[in-house]
């Protein structure tokens, strides 16, 4: 198939809408890619005007797009991404992988807000940090991510997994406030701090964390748990992403909530032995 490499010709100082990069597929040749439209500031341009484009043919099945040298002014990268691999070797702006339904996005840097908003499949792997609204609804919508995996090797900020319905979010470090609010289902793993108002309005879904600071007015203790699902999840994450969730020997306490709304969400709290 094709390996497409994009590198900006100029320093991107204004907002750049890169959603049309997702239109790149195996059928497009150099000229078609060159003519794809992008919005720079409020001016419509062609990709070829702003980016050096290199097309390589390889033996792999999927299309691979590699972007280097962009910054957090570049939004909508991987918008509605369907298949193939997208690799970004720099920081990236908001709406990364929003509404994506398949394929893989790897960011060797940090991302801004709305990472994986309303995504339904595929995986997003961020090697540094993400900002607010990871896996949450897009502005004006009600339902958050509905499938796929988001792996954040650094930390995230507020409103992670807001209204999340399905899928998996893994944060290797901590998050800030209002995370996992109104969760409908899905799985969230947060290895460190969870901030304030965590899991408020949670109806269903599973959270795994080390941090005991969530409010016990929202969640009631259910006792020690040895869920087989935990082992399945651990195995899945190790095999697919090479990440270990928690130390093996830690025991797990299960909490159920949000009890104020008769929620059946669960928090698995890993306890220090």
């Amino acid at each position: 198939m094709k390996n497409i490499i994009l590198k900006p010709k100029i320093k991107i100082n204004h907002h750049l809408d890169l959603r049309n990069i997702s239109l790149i597929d195996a059928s497009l040749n150099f000229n078609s890619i060159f003519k794809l439209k992008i919005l720079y500031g409020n001016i419509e341009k062609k990709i070829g005007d702003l980016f050096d484009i290199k097309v390589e043919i390889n033996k792999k099945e999927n299309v691979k797009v590699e972007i280097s040298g962009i910054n957090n002014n570049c939004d909508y990268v991987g918008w509605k991404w369907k298949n193939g691999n997208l690799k970004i070797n720099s920081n990236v702006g908001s709406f990364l992988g929003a509404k994506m339904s398949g394929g893989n996005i790897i960011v060797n840097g940090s991302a801004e807000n709305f990472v994986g908003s309303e995504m339904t499949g595929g995986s997003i792997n961020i090697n540094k940090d993400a900002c607010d609204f990871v896996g949450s609804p897009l502005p004006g919508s009600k339902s958050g991510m509905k499938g796929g995996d988001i792996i954040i090797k650094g930390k995230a900020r507020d409103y992670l997994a807001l209204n999340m319905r399905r899928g998996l979010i893994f944060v290797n470090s901590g998050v800030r406030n209002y995370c996992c609010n109104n969760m409908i289902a899905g799985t969230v793993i947060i290895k460190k701090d969870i901030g304030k108002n965590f899991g408020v309005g949670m109806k269903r879904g599973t959270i795994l964390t080390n941090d005991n600071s969530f409010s016990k007015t929202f969640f009631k203790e259910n006792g020690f748990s040895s869920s087989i699902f935990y082992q399945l999840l651990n195995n899945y994450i190790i095999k697919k992403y090479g990440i270990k969730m928690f130390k093996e020997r830690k025991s797990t306490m299960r909490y159920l909530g949000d009890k104020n709304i008769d929620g059946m969400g669960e928090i698995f709290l890993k306890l220090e032995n």
Partner: protein
Amino acid sequence: MIKVEDTFAEAFPMKVSRLIITAYNDNWAFNAANSFCGFATSVIACGCEAGIESKLLPNQTPDGRPGVSVLVFSMSSKELAKQILNRTGQCLMTSPTSAVFSGNSGEKKIPLGNSLRYFGDGYQIAKMLGNRRFWRIPVMDGEFLCEDFAYQMEGIGGGNFLILGENIKSVLYAAELAVKKMNKLENIILPFPGGIVRSGSKVGSKYKGLIASTNFDYCPNLRTIVNSKLNRKINCVLEIVIDGINKQDIELAMKLGITEIIKSKETKGVERISAGNYGGKLGPYLFKLKSIIT
């Protein structure tokens, strides 16, 4: 010298599915699988033929626990689905610490957790990991984890060979040797007790409504009153039946089993190796003994 007859085994297409059963330890994985495969020797009256395919190490199972792989064969998609669902519900869900996963992919789905989830009475939890959905059904030792669907594949049932000999001691020993060797293979099962069957059958009966009856050609007690295939020296015949996912695996199993008997110096008393067939009328798969062992 054991003679291999110039004949063939006749096999027929079946529907098959592979399940992976895991548990807290090897013992409980085996207990669950053993229960699941109970009363599943022949489609004649059991509905399906099932057996343990292989033992799985923790790094080979989805949840990182010890497990076993089980193959279930049936004549129709409908019957296969019914048998898998009933056996999972009654034999796996009931077994302490067990979990069950699909062991193959395919287009035709067989409901597993998708139907069993209702046992959770509203407290069941669905979890999606990648493209696979799992159900967590609350039970008294914690939860029963079960994949949403198993998947159907095409398989072959009825590969076989017969061991003919002087007495039960020598023939049973030879059959045990063959089974031990064949059980090491993947993609096949030997569905009968200990992998061996003594009541080989033919299609039909003189009694109305009976679909199978004793294969009197190979019954030593009847050799003087029917058109027997046994001479006076042969007093015992045992059969090994093989169900497999494809023709090559069944051929390999037959080859290993027969060669093991022929090679062994301790199978004195075994006179011939033959195979059960119906003149080529029953199934499209013919396994010629001579060409298999060469």
